[in-house]
């Protein structure tokens, strides 16, 4: 769907050269929600703005849906942009227009006739859940509602790609969740490819399939969200994973656990996806004559299922406990590690 080859952007300010995006190569599949995460100044905004040439690349190629964006003349680029939706951190709505007229703006640009425009606007208003607020001005809306207008506006010309630059960074956590749900919803309903820029790992965790971690203009790590969560390789990535999972002061905790719970085995369960595993504990308790006591852990939900670690204390006959552990290893994708055997 989107293929990016050797994309670079070098800014020259006061004779100083600054490489904001550095020789970046990347493929994004059709229908994917692709997250790009990085700290401030990593070059994320510059990167998305290169995709629709709001920023002219210094070098490299961008191909979106078989069309080479980087080689279009300005007239063709305008047409191509009508098929690339974009939403912004600060919404960027026209305050002089009502909700309805803001959403109609891209349709006016595309030269759609008035009757058809009105019908399309109504569809979009329903899609983003703003019915009843058609005639409000942006200043009369909450941040979340403004972003809904932004999303409706971006979808007006039925784009194949939606670019989101920090689309939820100006919103509170609850509103952020609602907007993210909406993005997943339109991703599924419309089969839209979404590229989402953020500095918050929980946003990636909640809705992305793929993630790329950016640092100093380069992608330093990339893969399935779950893989990256599970095996973060780069220090930056680990820091981002800790944002969601909490820091791992596990060693201290383990000592404490082992000295507090002297009975039975202490087992670490590592959940790596698959929603079916959530009933694991109750299944074990039913199937085998073991007592399971949850000691500590953190499980988080990604789009590919649960991810996280759980420490449990298992007590019962040695034979039953071994059978239970065997069951987990053979029948589920949960990784088991016996930290302390029964004594």
């Amino acid at each position: 769907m989107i293929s990016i080859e050797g994309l670079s952007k070098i800014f020259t300010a006061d004779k100083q050269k600054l490489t904001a995006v550095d020789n970046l190569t990347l493929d994004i599949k059709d229908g994917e929600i692709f997250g790009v995460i990085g700290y401030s100044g990593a070059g994320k905004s510059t990167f998305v703005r290169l995709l629709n040439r709001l920023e002219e690349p210094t070098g490299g190629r961008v191909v979106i849906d078989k069309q080479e964006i980087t080689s279009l003349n300005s007239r063709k680029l305008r047409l191509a942009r009508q098929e690339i939706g974009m939403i912004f951190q600060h919404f960027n709505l026209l305050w002089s227009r009502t909700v309805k007229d803001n959403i109609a703006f891209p349709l006016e640009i595309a030269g759609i006739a008035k009757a058809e425009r009105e019908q399309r606007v109504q569809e979009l208003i329903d899609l983003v859940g703003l019915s009843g607020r058609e005639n409000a001005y942006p200043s009369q809306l909450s941040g979340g509602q403004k972003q809904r207008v932004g999303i409706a506006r971006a979808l007006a010309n039925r784009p194949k790609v939606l670019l989101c630059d920090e689309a939820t960074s100006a919103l509170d956590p609850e509103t952020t969740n609602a907007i993210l749900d909406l993005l997943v919803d339109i991703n599924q309903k419309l089969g839209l490819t979404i590229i989402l820029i953020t500095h918050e790992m929980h946003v990636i965790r909640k809705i992305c399939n793929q993630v790329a971690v950016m640092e100093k203009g380069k992608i330093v790590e990339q893969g399935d969200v779950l893989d990256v969560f599970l095996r973060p390789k780069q220090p930056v990535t680990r820091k981002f994973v800790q944002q969601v999972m909490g820091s791992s002061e596990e060693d201290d905790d383990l000592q404490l656990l082992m000295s507090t719970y002297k009975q039975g085995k202490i087992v670490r369960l590592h959940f790596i996806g698959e929603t079916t595993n959530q009933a694991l504990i109750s299944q074990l308790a039913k199937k085998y004559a073991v007592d399971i006591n949850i000691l500590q852990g953190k499980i988080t939900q990604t789009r590919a299922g649960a991810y996280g670690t759980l420490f449990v204390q298992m007590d019962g006959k040695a034979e039953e406990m071994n059978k239970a552990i065997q069951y987990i290893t053979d029948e589920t994708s949960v990784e088991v590690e016996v930290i302390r055997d029964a004594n």
Partner: protein
Amino acid sequence: MLTDLFANIDAGDLWEATYETFYMTILALIGTCIFGILLGLLLFLTTKDGIWQNKYINFIVAALVNVFRAIPFIILILLLFPFTDFLIGTIRGPNAALPALIIGSAPFYGRLVEIALKEVDKGVVEAAKAMGAKTGTIIFRVLLPESMPALVSGLTVTAIALIGYTAMAGVIGAGGLGNYAYYFGFQRRDFDVVFVCTIFIVVIVFIFQFIGDFITNKLDKR
């Protein structure tokens, strides 16, 4: 009583002068509005990192604007006499005042327009670009509508300055309340005429200010 106090005032003349003041102000305002917006847009669009970034045009327009703003209005009228004569065919009467009024106030309004356009959120312009808007669309559907309250309040300020200019032009023969006050009041030592003209001008200024503020508030949806 009242007629005694204002014995030297001829209602017909006063009415005529008031009409001429309105006439000059409104026509000059229309011209100022058109040329001022053109100048303001040109300054804004050709500036560094603007849509039509162009050092030379920007420099020339800015220089012209600054020069004309630097010339005192009364001298500008004198300076423009040959031009006015050529354009209007006379140098007396309300119509003859229009070129000087417009040339005197358009650069001033142009600067106000430029400031108003600079206040438009860059993000909104960028959003329009990302939607594939042409430059014309950006100017007429984004820049001008989004800056409309500031454009109107700038026009109000300009209108009030213009009323002052018409009075000055009146002294050298353009007609209007300035003219009436000078020739029929000051020169004949009939100060009641000067006084009444002053009151009329103040009232006209208030009317413009009121209408301007009203429209600005109506337009401002921020």
